[in-house]
Structure formats: structure tokens, C-alpha cells
């Protein structure tokens, strides 16, 4: 009876999971397998394709442009991740306090997240615009500058301008992740600490931060993956300029596929990027693993 029940439960469980598995198969494993297959071919956007073995991967190893774009993406990630974390952590500390307005502020800080990245990028293109943009106008009104700032004029200012936009856009998301982690810490611990004489800094340092390690690991992994997959903001805001100085790796993959018509080569780059992200995610999760 027990065996039969568990079999029935297993079937029911399997049926419940099946739609999800089907979705993952169709939208993840099949495309992944196709990408792997395409990466082993000379596969133009138009016209006949031919098997080329590992030729795309061999060429990729010698392609300085790909590694340059990977390094640029790493620099972008190293800038945007701390910016997001610091801003999100401060905001999470602010809005976790119970209060009449905390719900309003949580919503306000989260609002930019619901805007699509492309729409947000376009919005900021106009905010940064030298003719009609508000940033230059404010600085000129304050007499801090005489002429409009060309925000995308140099490699560094273009990169920092995008980092500022992404920080505005994504801080709310990281804030929510951190807030969930903060609220999962039992209030008893803070109460005991206060009885023992711990001030706010001590509570943050010895309770909040250590107990949020797993939350940090999750937020960090999500942020790093998101940064390595950045595309829209660069495509829309700088188009990779000035002088090709802001081309992240996904932008390079896009160019290989749709400008250079080399879909097989672009697939090989995607596979290599996937492997790099898997390794990086494992390293992050390992380093921030719980002591338990």
C-alpha cells in the first residue's frame, strides 16, 4: 500500500514538474545544444554551412578583440557591482526600518527596475544629451560648467556614464534581495546584542553582515552574471564608442553574428562565455558559502 502510494505520489510529482521541465528543455537545453552544435560549424547568417570541428574555438583563442572585450566587460563588472552593492545596502538599511513611508520608499527605489533596460538606456541618452539633456543643463545653471558636458566623449567617461545609469536602474533589485536577507535575521539576536551593550555598528558588523553571507552570495552572483551579459545599454547609449572603447563581450558576439554574419563563431564565443560564467559563479558561491 505504502509502495503503491509513493509510486502514485511519484507520478503525480513527476506530472507537476513536467511542464517546468518541458519549459527548461525547450528554452534552455535545446538552444544550448544547438549553440554547441552551431559552434562546431562554419555557419553564416545566410547561405550554406559546413562542419568545421574546433576551428572556431582555435580562432577564438587568438582573437585579441574577443579577449579585449572580455577584459572591458570585467572592468565594467568591477565598477558596477560595488556601486550596486553599496547603494543597495544603504537603501536596504533605510527602508527596512518600520515606518509609514518605508513602503513608499521601497516602491520608489524599485521602480526603475520595472523599466526595460533598453527603455532606460534611451531615457538616459536624452538625459545625457548635450543639447536638451538635463544633466548638463543643471550643471550649467549652477555655473559649474560653461559648455555642455560630452558624457560619451572619452572611454572612461562613457563607461562611468553607463555605470551611473545601471546603478540607478538596478539598485532597487539588489536592494530587495538584501532586504529579504536582512529581514530573515531573527530580531532576538539584535535584542540579545542590545542587552549585551552592542551599539548599531556592532550589530551591523557582528550580526547583520555575517548572517547575510548567503544573501550576498546570491546577489553577487546575479549581479556579476548580469554585468557580464550587458548589451542593451552599450548598444543604445554608446554603440561601442568612442573609437570602439566600450564594446562588452555580448556586443562582440552580436556583431560576429549579425554584422559579420558568422553565427558559428558567435556561438563559440557564447559557449566560452557560458563556461567562464559557470566557473565564476562556482567560485563566488564557494567563497561566500555558509560556515554551516
Amino acid at each position, binding site marked *: 500500500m505504502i509502495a503503491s502510494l509513493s509510486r502514485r505520489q511519484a507520478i503525480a510529482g513527476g506530472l507537476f514538474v513536467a511542464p517546468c521541465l518541458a519549459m527548461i528543455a525547450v528554452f534552455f537545453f535545446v538552444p544550448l545544444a544547438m549553440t554547441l552544435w552551431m559552434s562546431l560549424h562554419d555557419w553564416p*547568417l*545566410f547561405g550554406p554551412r559546413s562542419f568545421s570541428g574546433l576551428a572556431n574555438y582555435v580562432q577564438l583563442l587568438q582573437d585579441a578583440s574577443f579577449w579585449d572585450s572580455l577584459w572591458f566587460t570585467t572592468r565594467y563588472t568591477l565598477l558596477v557591482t560595488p556601486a550596486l552593492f553599496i547603494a543597495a545596502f544603504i537603501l536596504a538599511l533605510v527602508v527596512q526600518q518600520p515606518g509609514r513611508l518605508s513602503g513608499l520608499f521601497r516602491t520608489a527605489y524599485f521602480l526603475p527596475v520595472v523599466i526595460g533596460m533598453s527603455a532606460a538606456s534611451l531615457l538616459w541618452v536624452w538625459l545625457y544629451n548635450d*543639447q536638451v539633456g538635463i544633466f548638463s543643463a543643471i550643471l550649467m545653471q549652477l555655473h559649474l560648467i560653461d559648455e555642455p558636458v560630452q558624457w560619451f566623449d572619452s572611454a572612461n567617461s562613457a563607461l562611468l556614464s553607463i555605470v551611473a545609469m545601471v546603478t540607478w536602474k538596478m539598485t532597487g533589485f539588489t536592494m530587495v534581495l538584501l532586504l529579504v536577507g536582512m529581514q530573515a535575521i531573527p530580531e532576538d539576536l539584535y535584542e540579545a546584542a542590545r542587552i549585551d551593550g552592542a551599539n548599531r555598528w556592532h550589530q551591523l558588523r557582528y550580526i547583520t553582515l555575517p548572517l547575510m553571507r548567503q544573501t550576498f552570495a546570491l546577489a553577487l552572483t546575479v549581479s556579476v552574471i548580469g554585468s557580464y551579459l550587458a548589451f542593451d545599454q552599450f548598444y543604445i547609449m*554608446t*554603440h561601442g*564608442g568612442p573609437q570602439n572603447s566600450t564594446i562588452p563581450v555580448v556586443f562582440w558576439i552580436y*556583431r560576429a553574428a549579425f554584422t559579420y554574419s558568422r553565427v558559428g563563431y558567435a556561438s563559440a564565443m557564447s559557449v566560452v562565455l557560458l563556461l567562464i560564467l559557470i566557473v565564476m559563479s562556482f567560485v563566488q558561491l564557494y567563497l561566500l558559502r555558509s560556515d554551516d
Partner: protein
Amino acid sequence: MNFSGRATLQLGASLLMLASAWAQADDNVTFWVRMQDSAVAQPLVKAWNGSHKEQISLTVIPNDDFITKFGTAAASGNVPDILAVDLIYVPQLAKAGQLTDITDKAKALPFANTLSKAHMRLANANGRQYALPFSAEGSVLLYNKGLYKKAGLDPNNPPKDWATIEANAKKITALGGGVKGFYFSGACGGCQIFTFAPYIWASGGDILSADGKTATLDKPQVKDALEFYHRMWSSGQISAGSKTDNGQNFINTFLTGKVGMVGTGAFAIGLLKREHPEIDFGITPFPGEKGGTGSFAGGDSIAIPKGSKHADVAYQFMTWCLSDAVQTEYFAKNGSIPVRSDLGPAYYKDDPRLKIAFDAFSAGQAPYSDKFPQLINDNNGPWATLVQDAVYGGDVNAAVKKAQTRFNEILSSK
């Protein structure tokens, strides 16, 4: 009838409607155009559908996504029946075997010898014809007559060489108050081929050999044209935003009334007359260094993708678009250059500026290369980088050498 009976009936009816809509959609002839052509394509398709049994479904695709979308459609074997595509992509699509050969039918057209030469040349591969002209656009130099007058220049005597452009730009910039003599979108490869290459052509140079297989950027006319632009940039005749403009402000800066001269397309004539009547403007062909004229002859070609399920109707539609009535009513009268040279007067009879644009287009050229997207249109490609390095960087020789090498690498690739 109980609830479940009614629900079943409703469901059945819905499925039937869905199936019928599906079947109807399958019967329709599908036509893809890029956003740039939507204003002309929409009334055109409406007129066709109103007078023909075979119905056409129009899909408008953002300019930048057009080739991406067609590429994925071709890979999945789900192509549209008719395709209107930027003429510069036709050599690539023809070479890759994506378009139907229409040579015999095209030759039999009664107006075949009046069709845009640039379109016909780019649609011809190894003596076979793969597309016909659909829409036309010619590039010209636009100048603000009001600023010319204020700067003490003759507004009816536009520049006919580079030295005059530079001298006029300096006088206009000297007006102050944020006014600049000249403007161009410096981070946009497509804009440069449209408005910068004509200076080279007008001076007798070119960027590619006649067969499109070798770069000719090391010819003196290319270097001279880059130095001409660099002089205007470094002496402050061009606003700082030019360096990072990827085409978004291609015409916008001129619309502020604070720019003396800008290279643009014939479309700007209608736009200015319609939306900025306060700007008094003139147009002129791009001059060469010491005279001569040049223009980019652009626009879209119309073709039948391989795999089209309605090739016959598609061809009927293509030739209908080229008929006297359609070219006159839907193109010329709407401010779009007709693609037939014999129908020019219907376009320009009311405004001499349109005649200048029409002549510029008729005499214009477009480079033939199946690598055009990589070489020219890519804002990170060697053509856009050449202008960036030379004009803003200033080391013209090094920029030319780098671009010449990169051009030939791409041209010799598979």
C-alpha cells in the same frame, strides 16, 4: 443548455475563428519593409489591397533590426514573400542565394532603362538581376540661408569647393551664441558613406575599386577629404557633440537653426518645409576639393526571397510599384524621389530644390560590396573608425593605413 455545453460551443467557435484567421494569414502575401520606408509603404499596401484580390500583409521592422530579423527568418525557412531592403545589402543577399533570380522578367519591363542605375547595379550579380528599385534617397549638402545672410554670405551662392565650405563655416561660427558653421554625425558609419564619401567621389577618388574587391583608401582624395574635415573640427567649426553622435542627431542639430551646413538626404527638404517653415534653407550637391559634384544614391530595393510562397503575386506587386501611376501618386507626390528617371518632373516641378536632389540622386553612386555591412555600416567597423581616428584624432596617415589594411582583410575574407 448547461454551462459546460455552452463553454464547449464557445471554445469550438473560438477555435474555428482562430483556424480561419490562421488560414487567412497564410493566404496573405507578406511584405517586410524597414521603418524608414513605412510612410510610403503603408498607403501603398492599402491601395494595393483596395484594388486587388490578393491581399498583402505589411510588416514594418526597425531599421537596425532588419537584417537580423531577415537572417533568422531565412535560417528558419519562414521568409516573407516580398522584401524591401536597403540597396547596399542586396549584393550580400544575392551572393548568399537568398533572392529569386528575376533577370528575364526585369529585362522585359517597358521602363527597364529608366530604373535607378545605382539600384540596378547593386542588384546585379554575375549578370543576373535579383531585385528592382523600390525607394530612392540622394544625399545633398543642406545650408541655412538665414545664417548665410547674417554672416554676410550670399545665400544664393552655395559652396562649390572645400575651401569655400571652410571659409563660410568660419564666418558662420563667428556669429557666436552657440552657432556652428558645419555638422556631421561622427560616430555613424552609414551617415559617413551618405554624406562624407560624396566629397571623395566629387574629387575623383573612391573608397573601393570598381569591382568592389580592393580598398582604395590610400588614394590622395580620401586623405585630403579627411584632412578637410579635421581642419574644420580642430578649428572649432563643428560642435563637440559630433564626435559621439551615432546618427541620432543626424538632422536634429540643423533643425535648431544653429548650424550653417550639414550633409543630409533629400528627405530633409520635405521635413523642413513641413515642420520648420521658420528655417530658410538651400541645398546643393556635395562639391569636390576644387569643384565637381558627388552624391550617395541610396534607398531600398524590392526582391522576392527564395522560399516565397507567392512569388507570382510578389512580382506583380513589385512591377505595380514601378508603374507610372504609383510612382507619381504614392512616391513623387509624397516627396519621395521616384526610382524612374522619366518620372522626375512629377517630383520636382514645384520646388527647384527638389530638382537639385533628384539630379544628385540620378548622378549619385553607391559602393558595390557584399561586405558593406562590416566595412561601412558597422559603427565599430573600419570606415567609421577611420573617420573617428582621422578627424578627431588628427593622425590622418596612420588612420588611413590602419583602415586600408582592415578593409582588405575583410574584403579578402570568405
